[in-house]
C-alpha cells in the first residue's frame, strides 16, 4: 500500500506525505524536496559551474543544478529508490544521461529517509563507501546532503585522497549546516579535519586542513559510522 496523502509548501520546501505499510504497520512517510535557500542555490550554482565532477550523497534539487550548469561527470546516491528514479528522469531533459545514480539499500526508510532499523549491519557499507568505491577518479566537489553526513563527509575526503586528488582544490559541501543543528548533529566534528571556505544560509563548504592525515579522518569516520544525521 502506498497512498499519496498531501502536498504542502512550507519553509521553502515541498512536502509529500504517504501512508505506507511495512510488516502490517501503517507508517506515515514524509518526503521533502529539501529546496535550498536562494543563497544556497547561488553558492552551489557557482561551485558546480566551475566543477568538472560532482558526487552527491542525497540527490534532489542540487542534482538539477548540476545538470543545469552542465557538470560533465556526476554520481549520486540515495536511500530511496523512488527518489533516485525521479532524479534520473529529471536530468534527461538536460541531456545528462551519463549521470550515474546509485540506490543505497539501508532497508525500509521512514520520515526524512531514516532507516527504520538503525542497526542493520549492511547500512554503512551500502551507503557510505560502496557508492564511492566504484569511482576510480576523485571528484572536484562532494556534496553531503543525505543521511550519515559526518561519516559520508569523511568517506568523501578519504576517497579523494585515495584517488590522488589535489586536496587543496577539492571541496566538500555539507548541507543543513546551521546553528543549533550543527553541534546537535555533530557536524562541527568535521571542523577538526576541515576548514570552511564558503558558507551560505545552510550550506558549508570545507576543504581538508593541510596538517590532517588520512588516519585522523578515518578515526572520525569510524566514530560516526552509526550516527544517522
Amino acid at each position: 500500500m502506498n497512498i499519496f496523502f498531501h502536498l504542502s509548501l512550507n519553509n521553502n520546501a515541498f512536502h509529500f506525505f504517504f501512508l505506507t505499510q511495512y510488516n502490517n504497520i501503517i507508517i506515515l512517510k514524509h518526503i521533502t524536496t529539501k529546496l535550498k535557500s536562494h543563497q544556497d542555490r547561488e553558492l552551489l550554482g557557482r561551485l558546480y559551474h566551475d566543477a568538472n565532477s560532482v558526487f552527491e550523497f542525497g540527490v534532489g534539487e542540487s542534482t538539477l543544478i548540476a545538470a543545469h550548469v552542465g557538470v560533465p561527470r556526476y554520481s549520486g546516491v540515495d536511500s530511496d529508490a523512488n527518489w533516485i528514479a525521479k532524479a534520473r528522469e529529471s536530468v534527461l531533459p538536460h541531456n545528462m544521461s551519463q549521470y550515474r545514480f546509485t540506490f543505497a539499500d539501508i532497508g525500509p526508510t521512514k520520515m526524512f529517509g531514516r532507516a527504520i532499523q538503525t542497526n542493520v549491519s549492511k547500512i554503512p557499507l551500502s551507503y557510505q563507501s560502496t557508492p564511492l568505491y566504484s569511482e576510480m577518479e576523485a571528484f572536484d566537489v562532494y556534496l553531503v546532503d543525505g543521511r550519515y553526513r559526518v561519516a559520508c563527509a569523511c568517506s568523501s575526503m578519504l576517497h579523494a585522497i585515495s584517488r590522488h586528488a589535489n586536496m587543496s582544490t577539492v571541496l566538500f559541501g555539507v548541507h543543513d549546516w546551521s546553528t543549533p543543528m550543527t553541534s546537535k548533529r555533530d557536524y562541527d566534528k568535521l571542523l577538526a579535519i576541515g576548514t570552511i571556505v564558503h558558507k551560505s544560509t545552510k550550506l558549508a563548504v570545507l576543504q581538508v586542513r593541510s596538517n590532517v592525515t588520512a588516519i585522523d579522518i578515518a578515526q572520525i569516520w569510524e566514530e560516526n559510522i552509526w550516527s544517522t544525521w
Partner: protein
Amino acid sequence: MMAGRRRMIPILLWMTVPFFLGTVVRLIQFHSSTHADDYDNDSPSRSRVSSLSRQVSKRSGEGGGENDMFEMMHQHLYDIAHQSRSNNENEAAAGTNNDKERKKYTLDAVPKSGGGLLDDVSAVELVHC
C-alpha cells in the same frame, strides 16, 4: 448567502490545511532535532571500534601509505556488513541456530497467483525478455 458560504468552505480548507500540515512538519522537525542521539548502543561497530586503528598501525609499519585508508575503511565496513552472516555460520557450527535452518525449494512454494516478483510483468514484456 448560504450558497456563497458553502462555496467558501473548500477554499478556506485549501488555504488552511497546508498551513496546519506545515505546522505539523515543523513540530516533527523540532522533535527530531531535539532527539539527536540516534547512536544505537547495540550497533555492531561498538565491539569493533579501534580494531581499525590497530590495522592502520600495522599497515603503516609495512609501508602501506595513507592513500589506501579508504580501501581499509571499505574493508572494515564490509566486515561489519558480513559480521551477522559469520555469526550465523558460527551458530550453525555450534548447532545453536536451529530456528534458521535452510529450507529446500519445492514447487509447493510457488505462489498460487503466479511467479512472485514476476506477477506484474505482462506476457508481452516476457516475450521481449
